[in-house]
Each structure stands twice: as C-alpha cells, then as structure tokens.
C-alpha cells in the first residue's frame, strides 16, 4: 500500500467519480434495507409480538390463516400432548364501518380466548378500558396506532357478518398483520363474524407453545395439522413473500451493478497504469505486490464511500420514518448492506487481476512484445 495511499492522497480527484457512485449505491441500498425492514414489520409485527413458538395450521394451507380452518377435534388432540400449551386463534381481515360517522377502518380481526396465554400475555401492558367481568371480550381491543388516528373508547363499529355492532373497549400494543392494524375480540364474536350461526367451534389455527425438543411431526400426524414455527408462518402474511423477494432482488441488482462499476473503473485504471505497472515489475515487484497495492487502494475508496453512503441512507431513513412510510432503521441492516457493498466492490476489482498479471516488465523500456 506504499504507492496506493500516496496516490489516494495526491491524485484523489481521479477517485471522486467512482467514490460518488459507490456512495449513491450505498445510500440507496441502505434506504432499501430500511424499507424492506419496515415492510416486514408492517406485515408481521402483530404476529411477531404474539407469545407463541409455533402455529398449527390445517394441512396445505401454506401458513395462510384465511386458507386454514381447524375444529375442536384438532385442538383436543393438541391438548393431550404433554408439556404443550395450546389455544385456538381466528384470523381474518374485515372492514369495520363506523356508526358514529367516522371513516371505516380495515382490521386484522384476531379472535382469541380472553383467558388464554395468547391474549393475557400478548400485551406488554394490559388493555386500557374494560374487559367483561366474566372474562369475555364483548368488543374490540385495538392497536395503539388507531388511537393515534382518533378512534376513541366507546366508538361503535359494525363488522360485516357479525350481526351486531361492537364497541371499542380498549387499546393495546397490537402491531399490524398484513399491513393492517390488529383488533382483538372474543373467539366467539370472531366466529359469528366469519361463519354466522354455522361456526361449530371452528377457528383458523392453533397457537402453540412447544418445549424445545418436541416431536412436531408425530403430533401433527395425530392431530391432522401442519405446524410451522412462528418465523415460518410469516410467509403466509399477505404480500410478505412478494415484498421480501422484490427487495432482495433490487438489492441484489444494486450489489451486482456496484461490483461491475468498481470492476470497470479498476480495469480502466489498470489500463492507464500499464506503463507504471511494467515499471514496478521491472523494479522487481511481483504481480501480487501490484495487485495488493491496487486492491488495497480500491478497498479504501469503497470502504470510505460505503460508510458515507450508509450514513446518508440512515439519515434519509430517520427523516422518512417520521412520516407514514413503512421504513425502519436497523444497525445490522445498515452494516450488512455496507459490508456487502465492500465485498462485492473488491470482488469486482479482481476482474483486473488477469490484466495486471499479463503486464510485461519490458513495457517500462517501451519494448512491445
């Protein structure tokens, strides 16, 4: 790096352009990472917050609540498994029309048994307002963000199919599922909303808390269910797979583009330096000496501009996250996108390796081979 560092210091202008390109790619890549995180959070934060380890779905439902229906029999089978806590959960998307003239709202309606671990432990704080003394949940407990939107306790909403209108009885930390705020209600109300009088004890899935060495496959065979981990069930959230795949694709392309740009830059630099490389070799430097010098140089450029880009991106995320954009700043996300950029940039610069290895020292004397 003897030569590389002095060149960076004294001829920095020639590195400005490639540095700016990498900086912009790093900025974009960081913002996209934030957006990907934000979308994931928006899609599954409600599910992530639930105090369960696994979810048992009906077979072939691909982790999608709306495709899964289970009945009491499956629940009873699970209840016989030793060391397992289980409770039914109903999940569906509903439109709630305000009866007091406010706007109607989209809700992810989570039907739960109010005395189950799912509801009593789901919340970092007990719901404000009243729950029924009998342990019933004759109304809606909504996510906090709806409170911020102006919904108040006592407001009544009519849910399609539920027959009756339901009062808002409290707010809690609920999060969102499928980009829609979560509303908790009693399982029986959820069943009435979805199936009318034909509910017959049906629900979407069974929330489970399993011991770590539990034989899931055997229990699934006995109960006729398909059990996934909590993380495995994220993919069933509406849009989750598509969003994640899109973001991954865009970030992948950015990395490839950045590697190609750095590679092209380094190649042009190598061609410009052919005579200088010949001179170094004539002075007794090996190809690897020249290559180390060059890669060291490009690494310094890429590291500095990636770091600057990551900082810029973090700033943009901080500003955007104050608004309605589903974006979330995470340190691992920022570090990994900047780190990947450095790695691909250096890999890109290896394209010039053959060119450097091929330069003949006789070039220094102006002798062509």
């Amino acid at each position, binding site marked *: 790096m*003897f*030569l590389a560092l*002095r*060149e960076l210091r*004294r*001829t920095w202008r020639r590195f400005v352009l490639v540095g700016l390109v990498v900086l912009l790619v790093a900025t974009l890549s960081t913002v996209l990472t934030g957006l990907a995180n934000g979308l994931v959070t928006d899609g599954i934060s409600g599910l992530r917050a639930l105090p369960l380890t696994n979810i048992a779905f009906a077979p072939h439902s691909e982790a999608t609540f709306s495709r899964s229906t289970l009945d009491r029999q499956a629940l009873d089978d699970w209840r016989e498994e030793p060391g397992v806590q289980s409770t039914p959960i109903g999940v569906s998307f509903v439109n709630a029309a305000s009866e007091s003239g406010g706007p109607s709202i989209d809700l992810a309606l989570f039907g739960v048994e109010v005395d189950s671990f799912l509801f009593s432990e789901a919340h970092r704080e007990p719901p404000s307002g009243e729950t029924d003394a009998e342990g019933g949940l004759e109304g809606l407990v909504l996510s906090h963000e709806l409170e911020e939107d102006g919904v108040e306790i006592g407001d009544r909403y009519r849910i399609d199919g539920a027959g009756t209108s339901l009062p808002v009885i409290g707010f809690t930390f609920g999060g969102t599922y499928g980009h829609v705020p979560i509303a908790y209600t009693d399982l029986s109300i959820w069943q009435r909303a979805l199936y009318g009088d034909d509910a017959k004890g049906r629900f979407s899935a069974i929330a489970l808390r399993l011991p770590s060495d539990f034989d899931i496959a055997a229990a699934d065979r006995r109960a006729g269910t398909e059990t996934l981990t909590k993380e495995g069930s994220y993919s069933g959230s509406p849009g989750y797979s598509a969003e994640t795949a899109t973001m991954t694709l865009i970030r992948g392309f950015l990395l490839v583009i950045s590697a190609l740009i750095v590679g092209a830059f380094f190649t042009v630099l190598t061609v410009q330096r052919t*005579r*200088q490389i010949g*001179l*170094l*070799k*004539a*002075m*007794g*430097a*090996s190809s690897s*000496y020249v290559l180390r010098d060059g890669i060291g140089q490009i690494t310094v450029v890429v590291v500095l501009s990636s770091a600057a880009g990551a900082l810029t991106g973090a700033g943009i995320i901080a500003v955007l996250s104050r608004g309605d954009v589903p974006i979330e700043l995470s340190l691992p996300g920022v570090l990994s996108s900047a780190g990947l950029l450095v790695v691909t940039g250096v890999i890109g610069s290896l394209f010039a390796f053959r060119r450097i290895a091929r330069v*003949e*020292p*006789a070039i*220094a*004397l*102006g*002798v062509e*081979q």
Partner: protein
Amino acid sequence: MSARPDAPSSRPAPLGLRDLLVTVPDGDDTRTLLDNVSLDVGAGEILVVTGGSGSGKSTLLAAAGLLRRPDSGDVLINGEPTSSLSERRRTSLRRRDIAIVYQAANLLPALTAIEQLEIVGHINREKRSEVRRRAESLLTEVGLSERRHQLPGKMSGGERQRVGIARALMAGPSVLLADEPTASLDQDLSTQICALIAQQTQRRGLATVIVSHDETPLAHADRHLHLAGGHLEPVETGAGSIS
C-alpha cells in the same frame, strides 16, 4: 578514459550475454533484432551501445535486464545462467542485481523524490529506517537532498534523471542498464548525467551498459559497440574516434 584490458579474473563478469537471439514478428515475416549476440561487461566497465532507432537497442537492454526472455541464448548475472530460471527467480534476481535508468527517468508521478527511492526498499521488504537512511544518502550523492520532498511534476528534467539514477542504485545492484538516459536533456545536463553514471560505475564497481543514439556518453565509454542488423560491431574508443 582508457579501455579496460580483458584481464582474466577469478570472479565472473557481472553481466554476460551468450548467443542471444531475439526475433519479433514483422507482418507475416519475422525480424531479427539480436542475432547471436555475445559479450561480457566487467565490474567498473562502461559499455556504450549506439544504433539507429528501431535497431533493437531497447530490446538488448530488456533481454539483459531479464525483462524479456530471448528466443535462445542466455544471460549470465554474476556468472549464473538465467534462461532456465523460473519467472519468480528471475524477478528476485532483477530486484537484487539489476538496476535500470530509464529514458526521461520514468518516475512514479504520485511519489516525492525520496519516496521514489523508498519504494524500492518497500518492494524488497527492507526495514523502513534503513531504507530511509540509504535513500537520504543516495539523494545527497546525486545532489538532490534539498529537493527530496518534491513531486516529479515540479522537478526539472535533469533533476528527474538524477532521481532515476539514485533509484536505480537503491537495491545495491551489480549491473546498471541505462536506456537513452540523456534523451530529453540539453547538452550541459547530458554531460552532467553521464558523468554521474560514470562516477557511480567506478565507485560501486558496476557493470554498466548505456544505450544511446547521441554521443555524449561516449566520453566515458570503456567500450563502444554499434548495433545494426542484429549484430554488435566494435567502434574504436580512442581519442578522435568519437566525433
């Protein structure tokens, strides 16, 4: 300066060429640049090779400096044959024993005068303080210690070439090859540069080959050969033969 007698010596000549053959493609044909050239250059001896442009002077230096392999024949460095050595071995021989002074100095634009010398030590993985000491003393020897932090862009042609010579001497070579060292200099500077090369050749017992198309170096030549048609023909170096 008188011609060196070819006294038999127990030590081999630092530079020896044996039946060097170098051809280059020339359209569909090949052209012979060096046609079985053989010679020895002893320690402290200056050989000047003249020739027209395109006669193969630089190719002769490239082959002698182990920068390119001849089609056949061998180059002996301190008596050691090099044609069968690996590229790695040739590189390390080049690093230690062969110094080259280039046309127009060929300095690295981003390095100061002293750094041009220090990078040689860096390539050779030598201790930094030792390298700096040697670089300082060499720059003083060529009269440039005041200018040691100057970049090549701010130096005159003569200064650049002095740095080039000092750089060539950094590794403590036994063979010094100079390619048109005075090409871009005026007469006064040319004379000074040639005197410097001659002085260092004497002081360090180098085997020096100067390739030139002008005649300034001849004043210091122990031997003068003319390259034409792939053959080296002796030219008398006695007084009066120069011009």
